[in-house]
């Protein structure tokens, strides 16, 4: 608990040069791999977590892209946003135009994150957590489309058992690439 306040400040939220300088050191200390992945550090704050959740609301894949201490917090956020998905999916007042809509929209309001949801036709849920508070719906939709395609490829693998967790490395790499390419308009 003691480090929480300090880390909050370290997490660059406004793109301020002073804070930027602290970031590489911070990442160096925690995860070298991520540093290698992100030559442009402005993007690593975009998506902090993606998750695939199965029929029993069980996690099938959860990857966080943050080096800080809030991996568990992201678990909680993803878990709680399932409530909103349940409510939206079971809400009978959906109009005809939204019946076949897979994109569920903004799920969970937090001050630091935005959580978006997506429901495939096989009732598998995708959840994405981003720190970009001004993200556009179109970008999120396109992200989910790509993510869905990657998921479909992963579960088409004959060695994947349906309903089990996704442990494929190539899936992880592909998801990493999709996450990195998210929101290309965002620059320094």
């Amino acid at each position, binding site marked *: *608990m003691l480090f929480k*306040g300090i880390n909050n400040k370290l997490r660059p939220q406004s793109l301020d040069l002073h804070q930027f300088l602290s970031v590489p050191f911070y990442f160096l200390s925690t995860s070298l791999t991520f540093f290698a992945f992100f030559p442009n550090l402005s993007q690593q704050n975009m998506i902090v977590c993606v998750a695939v959740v199965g029929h029993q609301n*069980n996690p099938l894949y959860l990857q966080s892209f943050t080096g800080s*201490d809030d*991996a*568990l917090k992201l678990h909680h956020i993803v*878990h709680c946003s399932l409530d909103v998905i349940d409510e939206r999916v079971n809400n009978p007042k959906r109009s005809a135009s939204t019946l076949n809509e897979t994109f569920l929209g*903004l799920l969970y309001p937090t001050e630091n994150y935005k959580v978006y949801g997506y429901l495939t036709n096989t009732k598998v849920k995708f959840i994405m957590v981003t720190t970009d508070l001004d993200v556009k719906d179109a970008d999120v939709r396109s992200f989910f489309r790509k993510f869905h395609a990657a998921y479909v490829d992963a579960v088409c693998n004959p060695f994947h058992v349906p309903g089990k*967790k996704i442990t494929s490395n190539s899936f992880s790499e592909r998801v990493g690439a999709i996450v990195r390419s998210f929101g290309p308009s965002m620059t320094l």
Partner: protein
Amino acid sequence: MEDYPEELRTPPVSLVCLTGCPELHHPISAFLHSEQPPINTLALPDFSKASVLARKKNRDPLSQPTPAPPSGILKRDWLLKHRTRVPAVVAALFRADQISGDPAQWLQACTDLENLKSLIHGRSTRLVVVLVQTQAAEELSEDVMTALRKRAEIDSKHLVEFVQNDASDLRQSLNKLASLFAELCLTYYKEEGRRIRSIIEKKSSPFPELNIRYCFKIAIYAEFRRDWSEALKFYEEAYRVLREMANTSTRLPPIQRLVEIKTIAEQIHFKISTLLLHGGKIMEAVARFLKHIKTYKRLVGLPEVDFLHWEWFSRQFLVFAELLETTAASAPSSQSPRFGTSESPFSEWEFQPAYYYQLAANYLREKRCCLEQSSVSKTDLPTKITEAPDSVMPSIHIGQSARLVEEGDIVTVLPLSDAEYVAYALAEAERFQDCYEIIALYKRAQESFSSHGSQRMACLCTLGMAREYYASDDFTNSKQLFDTVAAMYRREGWAPLLWEVLGYLRDCGKRLGLTNEYTAYSLEMAALPVFSTGFEETIDFGPAGPATLSREEIQREVLNFAVETDGDPEPVGLDVDLVSPLRSVLLVAVAFHEQSVKPDSVASLTVSLLSHLPLLFKVDLLEVEFNQPACNFSMSIPLEVSPNKWLRLTHEVKSGQSGKLECLTVKAKINNNLIICCRAESPALMEDLTSWKYENQRETYPTLDPALSLSGQKSIQVDEPNPLVDLTLNSIGPALVGEVFQIPVLVVSTGHVIHGGELKINLVDARGGGMLMSPRETDESDAHHVELLSISGLPEEKEDDLNTDLSEETKSDNIRKIQYSFGVVSVPVLKEGESWCCNLEIRWHRPKSVMVYVSLGYNPGDVDQRVNVHRSLQIEGKVPFFTNHRFMMPFRREPLLISNIRSLISPLEEKKVSLALKENNIVIVSAKNCTDVPLNLVSMKIVPEGGTDSNEKLFLVQEISGISNKCTRFVPGEEFRGVFSITPLVAKSSLSLGVVCVEWTRDSKNQDQPETVTTKHSLPQVCVEEPPLVAAIECPPFAIVGDPFSLYIKVKNNTNLLQEIKYSLGDSQNFIFCGAHVHTASILPGKEHVLSYKFVPFSAGVQQLPRITITSVRYSAQLTPSIAAGTIFVYPAEPKFSLEKNGSELVV
């Protein structure tokens, strides 16, 4: 929200001051208060009290020549002052007699008015003079009124007469007064607002504080007159200026400056939110709140007082949640079609108070963390600063504090330095226990979330509560809450979240001294599928610690914990049932290799153990328990259980007891002090482990043979021992309906001694259905188609006469119970080689195929178990005779039956045989043996219904030809005919002729007196009617060529009417005859008409007589004799018959 002063929380209400005539104050106040909008009253009983209205000397700072900087933004009591002390209208009440009467009184009134005028001088407060009249009659003169008005310097409409003599007048006066007050209040607040607005517009103030203050005041005045949109506009303006000021102001030391700004911002924001929410603009309110939060979130201030910021921040959420809750009715449920999309950027929770409660709790936790830090760092500071000043109190400005210094009688208020303020704030903050407040907030959030069906969010709030209890060392409550949270995460398989909760639970168990719980939680943690994520060092897992290392550590700790307390006589026992989370620690599958086994033979079974603990461990002793304790076994060889790998043990058991043998539990003793008692599970019915079933692992089977893993059961059926008894059922061919059919049953012991033998007989329809009766006939006595009559031929009965003593003894415990299709009979004790027999007597009422099931149950001797032998036999029930009947008329005699003619005309009517009254009607009954065995026919007779000895004879029966011999043998297929004559005596439309009884016996040579069985065939209902005409042909039995003979046709009229008949005779080449060819005749009632013809035959042989036709005109009926009736045999010459001894010639 309750912390806010009343005047801030409620909308402002206009204030009116009443003075003079105190007895009227109460009704006027009450009336004004109940008006819409209400008006508050400041009631001064007499004019001397009016000095409270006096104004203090504080001039507008801007109007002074050199404007001094203001010492604060808003004065603490300003709002209260305007709500309680500064009226918009002052009303002076005078009695009419006071004015018009005594000059001294008039003078007094004038003085009072002057005083009032001077008090409100300089303000825009309105003066109203009310003249109170007790009676409408005492009207004041115009002069007095004018004088008074001039004295008071008011308009004529501000001088009001108040008449109170009766209720309607009073009401009218009150209404008039109220509308005047409302109008004046409106004017007053509008003018005040305009005045301050003009100040802002005129002079651009160098001090933003004043701008804020003026905007706030304008907004308040606008609220007074319920102009919400203007109020909102100026609050927004004040809020904006305040936010700008935060970066520029240097008036106060930085910490206190920020505190003041935030306090003001909070109040202004509260006003804005309230206005928006009460105006139904919930979306705007939420958006405004989010903006407020975003604006101030990073305005933390100096690190030593950041706890003040988070406390303030938390309060923002709490207040907004409470505001939302009080206006919950207007939450948009149907407004937004879909949340979370571009149409509606909000999500569902942002309209729920629970969400804000939860965040308030989160920030209060943040506050506590910062406070703890500040308290720690406080000790590092020099002591002189850390000392809090003695008497700190809120200053006259909102959001500021000041120090009160007393020097003798003089009390001075001094400003505080930042260091003093920090010390004061710290000391204040440490006095409060935040954790209870945090728990209360989480509780409110949790209840609200669960009522909305958001269980996971409620679960997160519960987790927050549990953490708080844990932090405040209340482990009992904490454990209880953590348990509910853990159940949720377990169900959905969120292992990392469960890991954290279990870490807390484990610690709670440890602190509470619950060894079993501690061990159970630890083992569950160790067996969780939590793997490396790469961030273990930084993840805040609570007391659980990072996952990857700890799983092994925890296992080592728990298992070695057992070793350390080796001297402890009581080992830790854990029960693992089918729903326990500890199944992942040790899962036991037991599968028998076969489904059934013979008694006393060996059955193999596989006991498989699976553990998901990260390290290998040794099981010192494995005890396997069955429902038959004799089969229990244990293994004391140390067994090594590897992680995630089935350990399969095959063992053999032998059971001597028939029935089900089931494995109940398997106890594993680990390190001598941990005993895990697992419920055995069948591999076929085994459920996946909730935590591991989604893990992408290789699928393994508990048994080597995968098929056994899918079908294996933890129980096996132990068969009964083989019976050493012969049970035989014999039968002789098919059974015949009606007879008592005997089936001999023979029981021979071939090895077992039969004790307590019991023979059960069951008759079941062979075609299925089981019913031996037709459902409609259940009430009748012979409803059962097949009936078990009795069991005969028992040895006891035969020997009954010989040894009565013994049989009585045996009879007492004999069971003998016979029902229609079921029977039980007891079998005596039979030693080896002995036999016992009986006959089952069964009667068939209908032809039916029946299965006879016979089962013998007995105790074979010393062993206490039953052995059963079953036999069955299918027996066909057959009808012995196929019986038929036919009705005829006597030869050459034809009665005219009207019903026969009618049935010819309308053939659809029910066909019923008609018999002629008092005529001999012939019935021929045929019976055919349709069995495979020869039968003896004993008799055949027609028995009238209700017996032969009926009082009234309806008809006469005469047997014309029957059985000549006593007993006639019929081979299969042979037919017998009996001829009966029936003469009805009564005309009846429906007459029952009774039944034909055929008595027969089986043709068996070995039986001396076979039983006679009667088979019945019922004759149909007939119609007996009187024929109107009866025609009879009389003709000799034969004729001789060339020899004439006579033929008479006699037609009798049985009616009382004259009957006309036509008759005709055709030609024939074999005969010549004399008589009319065609003619008519009339027959008198009751008479008989005879037509006489003489015939001479020409040729010999069987000859056809000429065709005779008789027609009844009345009935349109024609009689043509049948061919047989119209045939005669003609001899070529007179026949010579051999004569009898007496020499008499046969004469026709």
